[in-house]
């Protein structure tokens, strides 16, 4: 028996496909444009192409929100599957106009009610909130019970990690402070936190190892955690494994995911990065 409450999110959320299937989360794909060709975030697999476009002259990847039609189609599918209420958890509204379009689209659709919840997040910062909501929905909780439990999540959700370089974030135009003391003489890897839509430079390191240690110490301070996800792009496998093991003590294994950053997130942060998304427990 399908739940009457369903969750919808977008292609920025970087949810692992098996989780999407298991929890019945609807993902509206995002469009990518690379070298004159158009791709959809959910079916895009050519990572080599993406890295090439980030690294050399074939032109930075561009991204575009789903069309009204795509939103309405997604809502209609959910309604047809029996949903009466849809909870929308999308990329932070100050970083993208996507959630605004989702709301506009809902006004042209009358099959179910859309409840937008501000995530203030990107990537698995959105994904973890969607998983949280979908778990409640799967247990059959009514929307009046789910919403008051999902709405406070943004306040407790953080994305934190190291970027291989800041240039991609800078070029994406998504942060204004991106010149903060990173110089351009030495190779510096910024450590960045995102919380409630606000990005902040948290530290500067020069090696993967130091980034790893700093992120682990951040997680230690943030613990206890309800949910935790490792986010990575092109991280050396041995580093990734060490990272995963070091983080295990801080969260219940059932609420711990390892995800490769998706193409949309990647096109904004660049080809190398390592970090976490975390939902802090209520203290």
């Amino acid at each position, binding site marked *: 028996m399908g739940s009457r409450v369903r969750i919808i999110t977008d292609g920025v959320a970087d949810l692992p496909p098996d989780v999407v299937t298991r929890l019945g989360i609807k993902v509206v794909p995002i469009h990518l444009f690379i070298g004159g060709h158009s791709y959809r975030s959910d079916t895009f697999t050519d990572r080599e192409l993406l890295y090439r476009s980030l690294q050399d002259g074939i032109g930075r990847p561009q991204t575009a929100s789903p069309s009204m039609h795509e939103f309405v189609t997604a809502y209609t599918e959910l309604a047809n599957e029996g949903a009466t209420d849809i909870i929308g958890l999308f990329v932070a509204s100050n970083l993208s106009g996507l959630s605004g379009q989702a709301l506009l689209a809902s006004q042209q659709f009358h099959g179910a009610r859309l409840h937008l919840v501000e995530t203030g997040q990107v990537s698995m910062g959105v994904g973890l909130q969607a998983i949280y909501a979908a778990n409640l929905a799967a247990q059959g909780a009514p929307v009046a019970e789910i919403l008051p439990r999902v709405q406070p999540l943004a306040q407790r959700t953080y994305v934190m990690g190291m970027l291989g370089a800041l240039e991609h974030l800078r070029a994406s135009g998504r942060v204004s402070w991106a010149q903060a003391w*990173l110089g*351009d*003489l*030495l*190779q510096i890897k910024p450590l960045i936190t995102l919380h409630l839509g606000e990005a902040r430079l948290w*530290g*500067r390191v*020069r*090696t*993967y190892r130091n980034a790893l240690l700093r992120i682990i110490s951040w997680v230690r301070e943030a613990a206890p955690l309800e949910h935790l996800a490792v986010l990575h792009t092109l991280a050396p496998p041995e580093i990734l494994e060490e990272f995963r093991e070091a983080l295990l003590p801080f969260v219940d294994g059932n609420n711990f995911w390892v995800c490769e950053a998706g193409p949309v997130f990647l096109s904004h942060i660049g080809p190398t990065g390592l970090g976490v998304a975390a939902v802090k427990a209520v203290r």
Partner: protein
Amino acid sequence: MEQVTGTHLDLGGQELKQMIRAALTWLRQHQAAINALNVFPVPDGDTGTNMTLTMTSAWNEIEYLTEDNIGEIAGKVAYGALMGARGNSGVILSQIWRGVARGLDHHARMDVQSLSEAMQRASETAYKGVVKPVEGTILTIIREVAEEAQVAAEQTTDVLLMLERLVRRAKAAEARTPTLLPVLRQAGVVDSGGQGLVIILEGMLRSLQGLSVEELERSVQSAQVVDLSTVDVHGPGMSDNEMLEFDANYPYDVQFIVMGRDYNLDVAAIRASIEAMGDCPLVVGDARAVKVHVHVADPGVAISFGVQQGSLRDVVVENMAEQYEEFIAGRNAARAASLGADSPAVLLEAEPQAIGVVAVAVGDGMEKVFRSLGATAVVRGGQTMNPSTADILEALQTLKTEQAVILPNNKNIIMAAQQAAELSELEVAVVPTRSLPQGIGALLALDQQATLDGNVAAMLRAARDVITGEVTYAVRDVALDEVTVHEGDAIGLLDGTLTAAADTFEEVVRHLLAKIPLDDRELVTLYYGADVSEGEALSLKDELAEAYPALEFEVISGGQAHYPYLFSVE
């Protein structure tokens, strides 16, 4: 009981003044010899030069005084030494003078009892100034001198006889330093700071004995002393660094000392007025004398203000705009250009900072690296030219923050930095970085949102995480730490320890890298010095990258003198 001659029962301020002058002259004669006592055969912060500069600053304070009160004169000497303190030996020397001044405070004249008291205080103050006192150094000398003084004061009333005994004891203690400090024994030298103190005491004694202090032939003054004259140009407002930074709205650099009448100077009030006048204000001193330095639009305003406070001394007015143009046009044009226009000046003001950073660095490239990573002020200095306490203090005064961190980036500058931190009105912490790469590591760990204490701990941890390699040439023969080197050899140090010697600098880099445990290390940053071409550095990099495929290599123009290569392994 010895016979009382009656000629030297006590001394006045003018006699002390002559003794200080003699000590300085005598020290200058021996400067090169003291410099040569460096334990490490590297072109390092020279003890003789540092102590001479410290004593010069002390002498400048009393040069024109006709005061005969010895407590007054000693106070001025201590103040001058404090402001001019350079290098660890200079700082300890300034502490010794501070102790002497305390011992002689409120004494119009000095007899054997007050001389003994002065020596006790000098010893105590010197030991207190050092976090971990090491025997076999200048500290041992002053302690033994104080012990001798205590005994001698009971046995004679003649200050001259007593001083003779103190000098004899100082020399004996100095000769024993190699037995107390293994590193000296290994290097086959006596302690250089201790030797400096012996020379100062001896110069003072010679003055009292009526012996000349200038009888040594001038030839003793080798290149080191010639260097000093160029080095000495560096008064406040005159360093290359500052000239490049001057604000065109305040083209005049004004310096003077206000001498108060009857301890009537209000330092805080003077500082407030001077700060309101212009840029880069530095106001230090006490109720008796205040040193003022400020960049202003109209020097007349500052000087008129000074005259209202007391009598003026050592007035210096310089037109920095003129100097700046000369400087740009001069032989350093290339360097000036590279530092001026394209240095990220805008970034410096980009974000409000809670914690200012003063970094000591040598080399244009190094200075740029520090600035690009957020250092608010860079004090020029390093291996061969240690900045004084006053230099660092002046940099602190330019900060617009309440809190600051100093990165000395050289073990021989740590104490001067600590002294400056204590003197500053800001809340200042010293992160005792011992090399430029350590300083860079520390600076990267700075978090403007964290507390000062938290930052110091994190920065120190980050600094220690960096392995530093330094490649230079030996300035003399030595067998140390199982490495035998000859003057002129290319040598390499790993985290301050002499580790390798070879025919070429590049070979030393290879040797050093081979000795580092590279597990968990990812990145080698090679900073090439002023005498190495970019091509040479890049071809060394290519070769190393091939030999160590697991490591990433980065090449940066450091522009540092004396060290063809510095590198960090992270």
